[in-house]
């Protein structure tokens, strides 16, 4: 029982971070119908930014979020403007290839700058943990979880309570109607893509803290993020959170209670069941453009 609860704690903490990464993917899909294959590499970029700031300027990785988030926003905004916007009329077909090309390109740039060694960020509190009622709660994971939840809440408020958020949701649902009301849909799309990349930037700085990474880490990441998206329902924020927690929880539980070799199996079995029984995902709606 002790092990079971310990595994649940670790799973939930990991799930929060994955939820943050996935929320960006959900946002870009929700607004632009674009499956952003570069989300994983954006996370890795955030990790390298945290790594660089920590090793050369001794800035705490949690503080480096303040740098990685706007930087990734700028990268996302620029890439959307120069590479994705020109495809807009054919976006549904070509964006998958284009964002994948972005991912490979950024991976190449990262390999060139940082090499292909595995990197890790080692802070003084890296290996500390709080003991609460006999359970070990790793400080880094707990902080990453709390911060992820805070950013997710912030994103939710931004999307539901502000004029910008309203216009993002409006463009995602009826682009032509939004245009008739004076919304600059191109700019909204670029901002939304930038925002999606920015969540990856924030998540990336924390990802670098909880696990080691190399430029190729994004292949594993994007696979997981897409699976989370599909199980939760593409474009659904609640689904992204639920999917992320289900993934992390099932992995952690199976790893501890059964065997690590089987840790991914239940999630992917569930993925197949969902695809057959409920193709729109657990929280997905068939209606176009729901966020």
């Amino acid at each position, binding site marked *: 029982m002790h092990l079971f609860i310990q595994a649940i704690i670790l799973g939930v903490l990991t799930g929060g971070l994955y939820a943050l990464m996935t929320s960006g993917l959900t946002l870009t899909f929700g607004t632009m119908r674009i499956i952003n294959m570069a989300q994983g590499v954006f996370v890795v970029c955030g990790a390298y930014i945290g790594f660089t700031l920590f090793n050369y300027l001794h800035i705490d990785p949690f503080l480096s979020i303040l740098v990685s988030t706007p930087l990734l926003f700028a990268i996302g905004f620029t890439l959307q403007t120069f590479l994705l916007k020109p495809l807009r009329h054919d976006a549904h077909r070509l964006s998958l290839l284009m964002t994948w090309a972005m991912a490979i390109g950024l991976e190449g740039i990262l390999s060139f700058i940082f090499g292909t060694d595995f990197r890790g960020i080692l802070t003084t509190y890296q290996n500390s943990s709080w003991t609460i009622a006999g359970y070990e709660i790793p400080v880094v994971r707990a902080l990453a979880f709390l911060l992820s939840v805070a950013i997710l809440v912030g994103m939710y408020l931004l999307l539901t309570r502000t*004029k910008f958020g309203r216009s993002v*949701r409006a463009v995602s*649902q009826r682009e032509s109607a939004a245009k008739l*009301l004076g919304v600059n849909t191109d700019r909204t799309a670029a901002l939304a893509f930038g925002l999606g990349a920015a969540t990856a930037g924030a998540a990336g700085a924390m990802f670098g803290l909880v696990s080691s990474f190399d430029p190729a880490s994004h292949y594993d990441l994007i696979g997981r993020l897409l699976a989370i998206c599909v199980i939760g329902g593409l474009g659904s924020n609640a689904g992204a959170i639920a999917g992320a927690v289900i993934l992390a929880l099932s992995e952690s539980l199976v790893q501890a209670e059964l065997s690590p070799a089987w840790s991914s199996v239940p999630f992917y079995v569930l993925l197949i069941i969902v695809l057959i029984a409920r193709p729109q995902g657990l929280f997905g709606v068939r*209606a176009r453009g729901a966020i």
Partner: protein
Amino acid sequence: MDTCLEIRQVVSGYGYGTVLRGATLSVPRHEMTCLIGPNGAGKSTLLRAISGLIAVQSGEILLDGMALQGLTPRQILEAGVVHVPQDRSLFPTLSVWENLLMGGYIIRDNSEVRRRALALEERFPTIRQFHHSHAGSLSGGQQRIIEFARALMLEPKVVLADEPSLGLDPKSRTLVFETLTTMSRDGITVLLVEQNARSALRVSDHAAVLELGTVRIEDRAANLLDNPEVGRLYLGASAAAHRRLPHAEHVRT
């Protein structure tokens, strides 16, 4: 006659062909003008040319003497022309209230947007009733009312209404026409495109018949209702016209 919107020899269309071939029309201020004519005549295309959704190849569109052709949709919106398109244009998972606020998107002052939205809520009971509901959950007629209310957020000079009664039951249709009449009585110039020509002529002040991209007849609505040729060609025989050009109305990008 005091002309609000002047359309002169407008030629326009889509990538693969010309739809408007020199359309000329004067839309009187503070009145409701309806455009009738067979499918494919270019009625919706004219509205899209006015609101800047498609380019005007030649000719002029003047709002109180100011040229609209060549402006962006947003500039035309700022000039006071609001287009309510034919297909459903509410954002289905935004609440009715949020949809209303979206109508004031180009206004920078958020408190002004709220003030106008609250004023409209006073006027339209439908808004009050469904304030928090998703717009997509309303009936077709209710959605039309919200669309018009949303168009009024900018306190426009001109409202372009494209087939507002399409797909509605008779009771909702009456409600939609009543709303439009009230709008024109409140001093808004309305340009209405209608398939249901007889009902449209009954509520309108002014009217024009569009055929093959040009205005064939322009007159007071009451006169057109009494015109035997119009009656034969466009009021009684609209079904036949419909069959002649079944796909043309779907020509849009």
